[in-house]
């Protein structure tokens, strides 16, 4: 490894990631760090201007409470999120987002994000919590504010963090992180007193519905490779709700958003016989009371209704765009000219919804000659995703806000994991659904301030064993060495008995997860024997991960991304096996425990991998209400 230079960076607070949460942390932490003479450093796998889940843009901000206008209270939001997630959320964290998020949205507007306004100057709502934006440059603008706060000298782009570092004397205390440049032969060692991991959720854990060129057209971005979960797990951080995968129902194949159609345009979705499945399947979801009676009906239950239609052969399911648009134009007051004008507006709104955030879907409509005012469009339930910021709860178990969290949830600083000095936000925080983009940025701000407070209280510099760093450097570049050593054996370097290339490793992982852990081919259904068999195969894959081979730095990035995916897959499987009930139908079915069990399982499922022994510990944690 002589030709790989080691670059050492010493800082106080290290932010891993460059998306919405990381940008929020950059802005907030910079403010407090400056007051206290501390240094903040951010490291991003890509270029901040277009990194993370909002890289393409968004057409709406999904979390805005509107407290100052009296529209809603944080309590209202907690009740909504609690019901949507079938009773299992960290109410202290949800409340904390709700009481701060409006301030983040107001900052976005000042930074230059165009938010739709009505004639009175109020934000235009898509739904109760959602506001409409012209969001093509949403991430560009937020990243710009973060860069202006941090200064470019403190930002490292195109460096992929693969491992966290812990203190030599206290292995439950964070000390930094290591990674490599995906562009140059440089190995990076960041030494820090506190670290925030906000490296997104996880995509491509399960076999996606499209497996050719369309493999990349995942609903969530393909560069979210489970790095948040895997890096935190490997230093012994406790995780929660990793069984809570998310199955988005979206326009089929392109994964265009459905929120504007359901909420803003009030569209119906109907089955092959023109029936509204939310009505024909109304009785079915009553098995999941009391949540079935909640308004709106929880996301997993609405998914369940649709999946039942499809799996029982009553598909395709169509979003009735033509019907919705006709209804709006018919009821538009005024002359035919007024109606025509409204139709034009609706058409532009419908297309912008896709062009701002899922351009593929616009292309798919155009390629199939679909004009939404004329023709309905198919919708479909996708493959599973891991994301702590949407309608699901996967992530780390973190300490809550000291002023409002119950004692069961408070052991340190806000958003600090069970590892001292290791913070997380956005997709990295578990039990805290429905943050979306604005809430994730807010959570980054909260964690950023808390991390600076932690550093002030713990000013000593952590010490890292140099031997450990040297060993990590060896390990990081091993796939390049393996490939180089063996590539000559076969005339085609793709087929070689001595290594597995990252792409085939991914396909092997995807197949195991799909078939044994309840992917799309199994209609999200599994049981204990299936999970045990899956774990057996996954364990062999884990052994084979030591034989990953990579031809260049780009492929080395893929190798480590897929290693992170493997960890995410394993923790998910273990959580699914532990929770012996079906709490989130429409996301996941345990065929051996097909019912919800409020007596035994209205709890959080937590897990911890012990770095000393290599053993997994599973546990139940209580759900504590702070809003009645």
């Amino acid at each position, binding site marked *: 490894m002589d030709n790989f230079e080691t670059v050492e960076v010493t800082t106080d607070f290290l932010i891993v990631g460059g998306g919405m949460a990381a940008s929020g942390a950059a802005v907030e932490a910079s403010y407090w760090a400056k007051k206290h003479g501390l240094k903040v450093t951010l490291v991003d796998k890509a270029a901040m201007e277009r990194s993370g889940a909002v890289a393409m843009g968004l057409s709406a901000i999904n979390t805005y409470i509107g407290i100052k206008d009296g529209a809603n209270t944080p*309590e209202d939001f907690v009740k909504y999120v609690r019901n949507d997630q079938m009773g299992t959320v960290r109410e202290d964290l949800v409340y904390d987002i709700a009481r701060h998020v409006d301030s983040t949205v107001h900052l976005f507007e000042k930074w230059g994000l*165009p938010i739709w306004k009505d004639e009175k100057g109020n934000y235009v709502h898509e739904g109760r919590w959602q506001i409409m934006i012209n969001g093509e440059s949403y991430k560009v603008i937020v990243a710009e504010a973060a860069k202006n706060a941090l200064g470019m000298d403190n930002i490292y782009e195109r460096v992929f963090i693969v491992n966290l570092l812990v203190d030599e004397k206290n292995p439950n205390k964070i000390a930094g992180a290591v990674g490599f440049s995906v562009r140059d032969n440089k190995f990076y060692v960041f030494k820090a007193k506190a670290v925030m991991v906000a490296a997104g959720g996880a995509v491509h854990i399960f076999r996606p519905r499209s497996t050719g060129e369309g493999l990349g*057209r995942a609903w969530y971005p393909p560069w979210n490779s489970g790095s948040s979960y895997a890096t935190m797990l490997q230093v012994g951080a406790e995780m929660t709700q990793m069984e809570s995968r998310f199955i988005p129902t979206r326009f089929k194949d392109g994964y265009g958003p459905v929120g504007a159609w359901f909420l803003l345009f009030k569209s119906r979705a109907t089955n092959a016989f023109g029936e509204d499945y939310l009505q024909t399947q109304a009785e079915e979801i009553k098995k999941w009371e009391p949540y079935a009676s909640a308004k709106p009906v929880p996301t997993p239950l609405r998914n369940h209704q649709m999946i039942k239609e499809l799996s029982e052969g009553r598909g395709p399911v169509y979003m009735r765009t033509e019907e919705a648009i006709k209804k709006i134009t018919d009821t538009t007051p005024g002359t035919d000219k007024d109606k025509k004008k409204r139709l034009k507006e609706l058409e532009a709104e419908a297309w912008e919804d896709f*062009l701002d955030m899922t351009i*593929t879907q616009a*292309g798919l409509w155009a390629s199939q000659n679909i004009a939404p005012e004329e023709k309905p469009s198919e919708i479909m339930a996708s493959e599973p995703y891991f994301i702590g910021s949407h309608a699901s709860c996967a992530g780390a178990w973190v300490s809550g806000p000291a002023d409002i969290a119950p004692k069961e949830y408070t052991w340190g600083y806000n958003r600090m994991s069970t590892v001292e000095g290791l913070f997380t936000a956005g997709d990295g925080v578990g039990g805290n659904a429905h943050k979306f983009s604005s809430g994730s940025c807010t959570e980054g701000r909260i964690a950023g301030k808390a991390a600076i407070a932690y550093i*002030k209280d713990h000013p000593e510099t952590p010490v890292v064993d140099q031997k450990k760093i040297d060993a990590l450097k060896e390990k990081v570049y091993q796939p390049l060495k393996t490939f180089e050593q063996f590539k000559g054996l076969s005339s085609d370097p793709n087929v070689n008995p001595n290594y597995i290339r990252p792409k085939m490793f991914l396909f092997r992982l995807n197949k195991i997860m799909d078939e044994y852990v309840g992917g799309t081919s199994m209609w999200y259904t599994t049981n204990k024997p299936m999970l045990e068999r899956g774990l057996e195969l996954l364990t062999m894959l884990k052994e084979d991960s030591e034989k990953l081979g990579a031809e260049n730095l*780009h492929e080395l*990035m893929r190798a480590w991304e897929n290693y992170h995916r493997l960890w995410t897959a394993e923790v998910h499987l273990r959580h699914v096996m532990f929770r012996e009930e079906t709490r989130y139908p429409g996301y996941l079915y345990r065929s051996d425990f097909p019912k919800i069990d409020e007596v035994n399982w209205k709890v959080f499922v937590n897990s911890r991998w012990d770095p000393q022994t290599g053993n997994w510990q599973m546990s139940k944690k209580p759900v504590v209400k702070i809003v009645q």
Partner: protein
Amino acid sequence: MPSYVITEKCDGCKALKTTACQYICPNDLMVLDKEKMKAYNREPEMCWECYSCVKMCPQQAIDVRGYADFVPLGASVTPMRGSNDIMWTVKFRNGTIKRFKFPIRTTAVGEAKPYADYKSSTEDLKSPLLATEPDSLGLAQLSVPKK
């Protein structure tokens, strides 16, 4: 697919410090072939079609051909991104053309001020108030749960 580079139009950004598409691609897909001085997408099946490269290319040398495994041929979606708005041209398979123009930002590029002009009201690191709060909330104080 994936984005693809039109050979004739790509000049390898030879006059610039960085290759635009290679700089921006969130998934590290776009790469410059230094011998041919042409960029290309090295892993089209990992392309999210986010159009970041298309929007940024100074030569308008990058286009997208829909994923071949589910998108019928013949349509195109083409952006022209300015500093304050974006123009889209959507061409249908049947030849229909639609054009849309949307705003993208309300401030000048580079001018996003991190704390805007909001006041801060505490020096206390342990206070739950963030740097610009409660001013940026438009409230007198931060909410706490009703007992």
